[in-house]
């Protein structure tokens, strides 16, 4: 299951970038996920305070 950003919920707090172990999230605006690098550990989903990062079904 890939990780997806719901932009309408994102506050651009960039916590996902700080906690990503794979260096797979970039951008000092709405974050962009590099699905090639992402190993689906879901740390970004866990650390997102606004529930904007979700597991895609």
């Amino acid at each position: 299951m890939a990780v997806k950003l719901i932009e309408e919920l994102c506050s651009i707090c960039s916590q996902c970038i700080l906690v990503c172990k794979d260096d797979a999230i970039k951008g000092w605006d709405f974050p962009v996920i590099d699905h090639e690098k992402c190993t689906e550990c879901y740390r970004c989903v866990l650390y997102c305070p606004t529930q904007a990062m979700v597991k895609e079904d």
Partner: protein
Amino acid sequence: MDRAKFDVVIIGAGAGGLSAGAFLSRAGYKVLVTEQLPFVGGRGSSLEYKGFQVSTGVGAWLLPLKDIVFDPLGAPFDSLIRIPEVNTPYYIKGKCYDIPYRGKLRAALKIAAGDKEADNVMRALKKAFTWELPSDKISLRDWLLQYTKSEEAIGVVNANWQVTETGAGGTLELFKKMGSINFGYAINGNRSMWEVIADVIRANGGEVWTRARATKILIEDETVKGVLVTKNLLKKGEAQVQIDAQAVICNAGPYTTLKLGGEQNFCQSHIKDVKETLKTFPWLAFQVSSSAPILPSSGIGFVSGSRIINWLLSPTLLCPELAPKGKHITYVGAWIPANPPWNFSKYLEMAIQDVREIAPDYDKYVEEILHVAYFIRQDWPMYRSYDGYSLSSTKTSVINLYNAGDAVFPRGWSGQPGAAMSGRRVAEDIQKRIRPSAR
């Protein structure tokens, strides 16, 4: 479904929730704090990134927290905080002024705008403080414009606090109450300070669950009955638990309280209050790492006459523990417009340009942008409301369901001390109304 019973459940381990929980557990209540994130402290916390303690929001620690929370709870504070000697220097037109504590605002106004404008503003403030504060029908900027046309003078006030969106009355009450507030830095990172308060709860028989998301506030007959919680989020033991409680405190914002409780369970007047009063306070904060100090002062810099930035500080000048050996963190804050359309990359560019003008060695020593945050939404803002636009009560229309945090500041309060104070007031109210179960 598993079931558990507590006297009080608190949703959210931020300044308001943890403070309420600590005071209640000290008073003998069985308290549970649920936090969806894997750490406590919310926007007043920190995360480790490449060896740096990166703030999740707050720039520095407001010292009033000592009297409001830490001292009354018997928790350590002084040994965990370092205080810059020149506490809040002003950066005026790119130059740093270490102005002594007393009469600081007047001195800064004089430097920026001259004696006459400084006198005009100070006279107006004196009248407001000693006769009557204005209302929140106008912004602080519009109030100031009645006394000075000098943008330099208004810029000095704006360096202290946002002037265009805040209510004149609420903000002046904050100035009156808190005066020149002093700041400090948490030696081991912001998060360690809130861990201390979480430990108070644990030491008094309470529990703090991280990775535990409240999914529903249970309400019957306009009275709160408990909370449904998903614990161990994204872990093997992920499970739903029903927590029965006599009172629930929501520290996740009044909108979330409505969402979790279901709007049909609240009085129309309360719903209107939330939707028509609160005005989200957004802002930009970014942190950069450098191989040498780039700021001339270890204080919490108030910046006027800049494009966009208002606060500028380097905690590592006093607390090298916050960064790898020899490295520094510089934290920069800026007010951004209250409403979209926002142009984020432009704000960041303007802010970096502002810092360059104050720190000529910026390009020589800065190595990396560690963190850029915009805090634009009600769920994770700078504050859930501008001063003058918070809810007047911590009580919701549902019996024993309270809000705590930065949308329900007592008037004249702000920041972490305000959020903590709201939690403390809720704890006091619960102690008057509900008895702890025998343990």
